């Protein structure tokens, strides 16, 4: 794999470790988030996604490893580096007594490149009223407000922790479209965590699958189909082929892409959902 400090990766980690007491939650992951792409960070509840994201934001110090943001390697992301990152957390803890406008002014005061017009535009697009009190907003609207606040300083990287959790289908669609547009139109790198595989399939260019603190797969979303395929039940598998899951309609098998090509085994593509399920079950 290429050096994480080179220009190809907007965000990368090397051997990132985090423990809570004796329990290791993140176990030496090497993250590679390509520049200008949408990266879906997939994992079950408790896989370590939020912990990883909090380390990427500098809100939680790692117990080992390095974080590369904008080509600079650090043990911890600094306040200065956060100038170039937009962040949306899983739960929104805003000052409830403020209006949306006041909150925008407060948050904007900390960024050098804050654009008030951009915030106004984003709030309008996401249907968030500026004069409303934050405490009166629904959970979904708070999430949209957080997204607008995270984008108003035109960050190079946008990091989102389960941005669609608890929002209605319409708001979910608006958020996902906005994320896609950030990469396609603005050329921003978007890194978002989710446990909804369909969302990664919908908007993701890259996917990273995290399971119990280990990175099981990382690469282009379509790339997983080259590794995991379905073969008829009872197929004789040679060396290098690993049976992940036995199902009546076929076996889910893992092998290197060249081995698939050279084997000539009859196989068919599986959905990301099936591949994720098979990997998770196998590891369990």
């Amino acid at each position, binding site marked *: 794999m290429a050096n994480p400090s080179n220009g190809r990766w907007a965000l990368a980690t090397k051997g990132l470790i985090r423990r809570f007491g004796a329990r290791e939650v993140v176990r030496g992951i090497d993250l590679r988030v390509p520049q200008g792409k949408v990266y879906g960070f997939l994992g079950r509840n408790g896989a370590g996604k939020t912990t990883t994201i909090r380390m990427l934001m*500098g809100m939680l110090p790692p117990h080992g490893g390095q974080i590369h943001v904008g080509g600079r390697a650090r043990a911890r992301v600094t306040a200065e580096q956060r100038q170039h990152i937009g962040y949306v*957390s899983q739960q929104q*803890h*805003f000052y409830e007594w403020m209006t949306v406008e006041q909150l925008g002014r*407060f948050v904007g005061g900390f960024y050098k490149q804050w654009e008030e017009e951009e915030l106004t535009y984003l709030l309008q697009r996401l249907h968030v009223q500026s004069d409303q009190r934050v405490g009166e907003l629904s959970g979904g609207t708070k999430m949209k407000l957080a997204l607008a606040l995270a984008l108003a300083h035109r960050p190079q990287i946008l990091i989102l922790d389960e941005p669609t959790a608890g929002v209605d289908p319409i708001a979910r669609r608006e958020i996902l479209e906005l994320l896609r547009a950030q990469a396609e139109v603005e050329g921003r790198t978007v890194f978002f965590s989710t446990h909804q595989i369909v969302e990664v399939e919908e908007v993701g260019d890259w996917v990273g699958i995290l399971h119990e603190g280990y990175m099981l797969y990382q690469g282009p979303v379509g790339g997983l189909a080259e590794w995991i395929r379905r073969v008829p039940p009872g197929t004789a598998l040679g060396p290098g082929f690993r049976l992940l899951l036995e199902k009546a309609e076929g076996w889910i098998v893992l092998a290197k892409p060249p081995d698939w090509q050279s084997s000539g085994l009859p196989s068919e593509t599986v959905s990301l959902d099936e591949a994720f399920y098979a990997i998770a079950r196998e590891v369990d």
Partner: protein
Amino acid sequence: MTLGLAVKEWGQHRRALLGVTALITSQVVLLLSFVLTQESPTLLRAATAFAWGGGPILAAFTARRLFVLEHEQGTISLLRALPLPAEQLTGVKFALALLVNLAFTLGALWIVALLVHRQELIPLAWLLRLSVQVASYVFAWVAICCLMAHLGVYRHALWLLLLLFMLGLDDVVHEPARYLFWTAPLADNLEVTRYAAPWDGVALALAWGLGATGLTFFLSGYRGGAWVDALYAPMSGRRRAQITAAIFATLLAFEIGADLAKRGTQSAGGLSTIGSVAYAQPDLQVLAERLNAELPPLSEFLQTDLPIVTLAWRHDDRPELALTETLSDQEMIIGLSPAGPQDDLLRHALTDVLGAHTGFLLEQNPRAGVWALGFAAYWLEKRGTAKIHPVRDAAAFVARRAPQAPVQDYDEVRASLGRSGAEALGWLAWRSVDAAGTEPTQVLARALFSTARRRASVGLLASSAIDPVEILTNEGLSPRSLDRSTQDGLRELAQQRPALPSIPPPSFWAESQGLGGLRWSLPSGLDPEQVTLWWGTVEPLSKLPTPQGRIYEVPIHGSWGRAALNADPRERVITQWSIDGVNQGWTELHRP
């Protein structure tokens, strides 16, 4: 950034701040009215009392609003995600906390000063010194409260432990609030600061404040505040149980430690007993022997069982030579001042034995109080077992000042001549009765002292009913002849004590920073062997120049000279000449 944060804090806490302002105003007004009723020497006490009691509450309140709420409401995660260094976040909040606390406490001080400056003299220098004292005290409290606010869910347990530690130390260390903790700048009597500010206390508070500030910034900045965030994670049931166990263990350790310390003190001296008198320190043995020699004959004379007495040295600043604690009907402990001469201590101890035996109720009976006080001096003089020079001196003073003093009105005598004057008059009265015969003396003494009484309403009523004049009249003595006899005694004493030459009070020679010594010059013709120079200290605002603790003798070897004065520059020093054992009266030493 800083301004944005400050504006946010103002918006978030302005209502609470207005509430606090109203509360503080009412508190200060209440304190002011209370101080007015207490006849305090200075009304500024209202402001310093507010700083002393209200300062910690205000500091805890602001620390909670500024730091704890962010964690409890989860808004800390919003702040942590912003490009704002953790140290800067803490710095702004800490500065705001300090500013608010100083504004309220110093504001209260200066407003009270402004209100009362027409009623009392408040020099600007004193007010500035007080401001520094209050500011250092407030700074330390703010820093400690902010530090505690960074200790997450463990802060309550730590507050409790700190409080227990401070209270527990009270038993082990001498005045920890004054010499160990950040409370030092305001631990002194306020009026003392008129003379000099307690700079050592200010330095102590600043050291505590700076230490706590350093720890606060370390905690908040270390790993971007992750430690603090972790400390705010909800406690598990197991952790809660561990903390509770730790608190109980600490409490127990403190209890046992304090008990051991006390036991250690006792075993160092031990209690030795001579007859019915026990004594705590070896150098009290002679006094115990002397007291024990008095008690059996006195018991027989009064036909009553006197209490068992324990003698111990007292190490406090109280001026009394003897202070008594009644342990039970038949047990008492007398705390004696090491400053007193043996004869005086014996007389005071004997007076207190009789006082404790009768529940100290006779002094509440105006007709009997003088008699009760004067009996010990009469008894010791009659038996020739102690010299009673101070009583004679006091009687001479009474003879010149109030030769018609009424023996039967203790309240009036005590108000005009003091306790020693009452004792002297009582001594003379007993002498007059004794001159008439032993029988009436014994009858009166038994009426006064033979019934053990308790401090209860029945005892009080019974004691109040005692009328010595009536008892003596029944014994065939005429009250008028008794008065005449007492006044004759006074006249005789006044003649025995001719006017003594007057010695100018010693002056102060300054060395440096309030230190220096005494300089004196005796009038010609006065032999240095005849004179003694005493010095002592007096309470800061006491109107009477009476020594508050130990008094010291200055060796006089010539008709002029000087000697070092080993006194704190902040204290008021008084001096007294004594010629042939007759005290000339205390005079305050003027020090620059």
